[in-house]
Structure formats: C-alpha cells, structure tokens
C-alpha cells in the first residue's frame, strides 16, 4: 500500500514536469541464484525432496536513485559487473526491478547490442525491415527510411547478399545505421559506439552529435572517458550495485579514474 502511494505521487510529479525524462526511485534488482545450476527435472525433484535447493541472494542493484532531464545526457560508469547494463535494461523496460521503479517519458530506444535479432540467412535488405519491425515500424514506414539507412551504412553493393557473408564490421554498421535512423527522445547505448573503421566511427560520432542537437537525450554505458566527457553532462558512478557518486561528468569521471588508478588499473584515456 505504502509502495503504491509512493509510486502514485512520484508518477504524478513526473507527469507534471515536462523536462524530466527518466526518474528512477529506489531501484533494487536482486537475483536469487541457486547455488548450483539445476536445469533438469530429476535433479530438481531430488533436491526438492531433500530440501536442498539453496539460493544465494545476489544484489545487482541496491537503492539506485537518479533522474535525467531533457538534454542532459547521462553516463553510467563503473567497473565490470557494477550493474550498469542491468540498470540500462531496467530503464529500457526489458526487465522489471525487484523493488522500486523507473519512470520514463517519450520514445525510448535501447541500443544494447548492434544487430540484435538479425537473421543471418536473410539479406541485408530483409534485415532492415525485420529489425525495423522489432522496433515497431511497419513496412511502409521502413520504406521511407530505407534509402537513408543503406546510404548511411555504405552497404549499397551488398544489400541483397545474405548477412552471413558480411564481415562483422559490416553487420555492426548496418545495425548502427538502422538504430540511429529513428528520432528518439531517449537513447540507451551500451558500449556499442566505436564500431567499424575510423571513417565510419567519425560518421557515427557526427550522427550522434546531430541527434543530440535534434533534442535526443542519451544514457551511455562506456569505459571510454573521453567519449563520455564529450557526450554527457552528468554521470552516475556505480560500484557493486550502489551509487558511489553522481553529479557533473568531469568530477565523477575524475573520481572513477582516481579509484581505478589506486587499484592499478589503467583506464582508456
């Protein structure tokens, strides 16, 4: 009851503030992992009878709270396994947190893996429409985008060849071209920037810049400090699932780099 009313108040405030894009309140994600993996019935039955299924509770995220305003891109930083990608999936609405909630507004486009859902047997052209459909665009809507996607990916000559004959760089290029050809309010990016060769990377950076000027706000997971400094204004530093620090991107990144250097880990400059 208390949780529901808390949610209602937060949702009401969130709706009233037109500039607020994301509001995360007390987000907790707990995985209950069986101490050994049981995936067949015989073992499960035996363990159940013996009451031997032990679960290890594992907190991926603990009481994470932050908000994102329009035009204020956010970087999520932290070491591997700090919960950055899980948080991104929760914001995208792909998984639901065990406690707390995340409110989002507008068109949210997750870009967690380039070419997720590509069909290797189908041609590049078919995949453009298939991938578009996964994002909810009808065939006709994709028809309008088709030319610009192909032009951006620079794959004109190979667009009718099956995807299994593409190089990995080409697949990433196609994935990126499809993903950025929408005009989202909020874009979630999980370490997928910096694909392809140097000219294509520059092209991606220019496209991201263009989207940003067009009013898209980003939430980025990245280990490249230079990248997040140019793209984001704010940062959240996660450590073992909790927020260690949040605020201005320069200060937070500095603190993170300092922490890493203390551990003797060199970060990408």
């Amino acid at each position, binding site marked *: 009851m208390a949780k529901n009313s808390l949610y209602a108040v937060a949702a009401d405030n969130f*709706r009233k503030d*037109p500039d607020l894009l994301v509001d995360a309140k007390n987000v907790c994600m707990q*995985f*209950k*992992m069986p101490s050994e993996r049981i*995936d*067949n*019935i*015989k073992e*499960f039955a035996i363990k159940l009878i013996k009451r031997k299924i032990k679960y290890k509770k594992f907190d991926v995220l603990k009481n994470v709270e932050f908000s994102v305003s*329009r035009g204020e891109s956010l970087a999520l930083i932290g070491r591997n396994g700090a919960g950055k990608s899980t948080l991104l*999936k929760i914001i*995208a*609405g*792909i*998984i*639901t947190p065990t406690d707390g909630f995340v409110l989002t*507004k*507008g*068109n*949210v486009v*997750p870009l*967690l*893996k380039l070419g*997720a*859902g590509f*069909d290797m*047997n*189908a041609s590049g052209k*078919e995949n453009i*429409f*298939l991938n578009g*459909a*996964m*994002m*909810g*665009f*009808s*065939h006709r809507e994709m028809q309008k985008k088709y030319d610009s996607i192909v032009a951006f990916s620079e794959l004109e000559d190979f667009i009718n060849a099956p995807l299994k004959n593409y190089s990995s760089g080409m697949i990433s290029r196609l994935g990126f071209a499809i993903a950025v050809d929408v005009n989202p*309010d909020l874009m979630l990016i999980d370490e997928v920037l910096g694909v392809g060769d140097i000219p294509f990377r520059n092209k991606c950076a220019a496209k991201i810049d263009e989207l940003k000027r067009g*009013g898209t706000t980003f939430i980025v997971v990245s280990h490249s400090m230079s990248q997040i400094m140019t793209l984001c204004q704010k940062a959240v530093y996660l450590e073992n699932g909790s927020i260690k620090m949040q605020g201005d991107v320069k200060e937070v990144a500095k603190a993170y780099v300092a922490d890493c250097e203390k551990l003797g880990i060199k970060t990408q400059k």
Partner: protein
Amino acid sequence: MKKFPSTALGEKLQPVFAGWRKGAITLSSLVVKNVKNQYRRSVLGILWTVLNPLLNMLVMAFVFSSIFGRAGIEMDYPVYVLSGNIVFTLFSAASSNAMTCIVNNYDLLYKTKVPFSVFPLSQIFSACVNFLFSLIALVAVMLIRIPNGVTFHWSMLMILVPWLPAMLLFTAGVSYFLCTLYVRFRDIKHIYSVILRLWMYLTPIFYSLSSLKLSETANEIMQLNPLLHYLNYFRNIISGVIPDWREHLIVYGVGAGVFAIGWLIFRLSRNKFILHI
C-alpha cells in the same frame, strides 16, 4: 521538441494501442521470416508446404491401409489420412517450435524491447500459415478422389471459422505452457518429443476409433484427448456434417481453458526467465 498528450484518457490508452500495434508488426514480420527461412535456398520453395503433406499422406495411405485396414472409416481413406495428418502437424509443429523459441531468441529478448509473448505466437502463426497451404493439398486430393465418391460441402468453409480459432487457442495454451517449462527444464524437449509420438498414435489419424473395438472405459479415456475432438470436428465439416452445440462447447471450452492456464503460467513466470536462460 516533442509534445506529449496530456489528457488523462489519451495518456492511458495511447501506450496500450501503440504497444498492440508494435506487437502486431513484430509478429507479422517474424511469421514471414519463419515461413521464408523454412524453404530458403530450396528449388521448389514454398511449394514444399503443399507437397510435404501430400507425400506424407501417400506414404501413410500406402502403409496403413494395408496394415490396419480401413475398417470403420466411411470417409475416403486418402482424405481421412491427409486431414488427420495436417491437423496433427499444425499442432505438433506449432507447439514444439514454440517450446524452444524463448530460449533460442535469448539475444533478442534481452537486448530489444520486443514483448516476450510475441515469440511463441509467431511460431503458432507460422504453423498456421503452413496449415493453410496444406489445405490446398487437401482440396487437391479431394478433387482427385471425386470419382471415388468424394463430394465438396459448403460446411468445409467452417475450417476457417469457427474451427481454426478454437484450434489455435488450444495450441497457444499448450505452447505458452511448454515454453515456460522449457526455460526452467531443458529436459522437456526430449520428453515432449516422446509424448508427441504417443499422442500421435493415440489420436485416430490413420485408423478409426471404432475399429479398435475398445471397451467402454477405454473408449471414454480416449475421449479425453482434446485433439480427437478437434480432429473429429474437422472431419465432420469436410464431409458435410455440421457438429452439434456440444462439440462446439468442447472445442471452445477446452481451447479457452487451456489457453487461460498456459497464458497465466507464462505471465507469472515471465519476469523470472532471465534467471534460468
């Protein structure tokens, strides 16, 4: 800058409609992909969906008419076998493909915003498309068998409505249940293939129930097989017999019940899938 509608009702309904529309677009493109991939790079392509049940029927008609005999079957035997075959294939293909689809599409599920429920459904509709193609085979065989006394009846149109929706409800329910179970226990795949085999022999696909000369109790037990009712209904409307209200009640009652249970189990376990995949 984009604007968001601020009316309370619009705000509540718009995402629902947008979600449904998105799901429908995703579903249809997945079905097209599944059907295309089935026969990619084969010379005859989609023609195989018609040829396959035909050839199967020939084998079954050839083998079983001499082994089991045609005792108790009033229907033309090739039509009898083919109708049993395509109905059972619809069910078995849909349910066994849907069973593994959540696990197989792991990548897509946790990297994009596609709703989980779309995947089993896409397998069911793909099987349904194949079924519609195999109806062409059925019509072809019936045409060939006209000299042997096969006649066409208007009631055959009842295959599309009301038979097919009831059949799909039942299949979807079983599929949602199986794919939930498969996420947790991978053994199901092996167990289910055996169950399907048994189920096939227990369903009068190439024999008739009356020729088995079962005791009354055994006969009643056989009547518990839902597929038997769907199949009887199907054969009745082909041969011009319109089933009475009891048969309608059975196919829709079982269909709705099984669907409700399967869907409920799927919905309740959906959030835990990530732990087991």
